[in-house]
């Protein structure tokens, strides 16, 4: 898997605006999936067993949806908003399966900013070429000051 910036961007709440966007690119490999299986214990054969996966209508192993969705963590925690982020909620819709070797682009765009709660809402899109494989929203608290 590829990773973006090595240190988190330090954007304060006042520096964020509706329309701000960021993206990163990741290629899902066997190593990525192995690490996810080790962490979560999800060894469902659709994700881990070639022979079984070939018997399904997918005809090959499908990458865990939650692995794909987890890519938003890097986007939010490292880029937008970055260092001062704390994710409060997320909603994701899994629209298409992802396979080993797929290169995914994760894009987040701020669609709402609440001064009262010091939160921003980002629209999330994870795409493979022109296909959106995951879409969703994430609400992030920006803790650049103590409230």
């Amino acid at each position: 898997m590829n990773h973006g910036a090595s240190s988190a961007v330090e954007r304060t709440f006042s520096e964020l605006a509706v329309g701000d966007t960021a993206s990163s690119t990741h290629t899902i490999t066997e190593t990525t999936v192995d690490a996810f299986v080790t962490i979560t214990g999800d060894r469902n054969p659709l994700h881990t067993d070639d022979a079984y996966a070939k018997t399904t209508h997918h005809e090959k192993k499908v990458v865990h949806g939650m692995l794909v969705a987890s890519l938003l963590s890097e986007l939010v925690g490292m880029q937008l908003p970055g260092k001062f982020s704390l994710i409060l909620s997320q909603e994701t819709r899994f629209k298409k399966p992802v396979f080993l070797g797929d290169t995914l682009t994760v894009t987040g765009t701020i669609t709402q900013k609440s001064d009262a709660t010091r939160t921003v809402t980002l629209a999330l899109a994870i795409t493979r070429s022109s296909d959106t494989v995951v879409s969703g929203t994430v609400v992030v608290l920006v803790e650049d000051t103590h409230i």
Partner: protein
Amino acid sequence: MKPFNDIVTEQLGIPKEKISDALTPADVPEWDSMNYLLFIGELEKQYNISFSMDEILGAASLGAVRALVASKGISV
């Protein structure tokens, strides 16, 4: 426009039949600080309004939040 009580149920987990303006965070296990932020954010989004931090920190009950929304010209 989504009804206020629907947002209360979705964000704070309070069944509609138990919603009362007298409810406070002490009465509702789901009404923690994180959920309150999400609740306020959803109200701002649904009704296209904005609160100040002082306004939301000063709202001590569900009725106070409802009054705050009403003060922005929204009928709830």
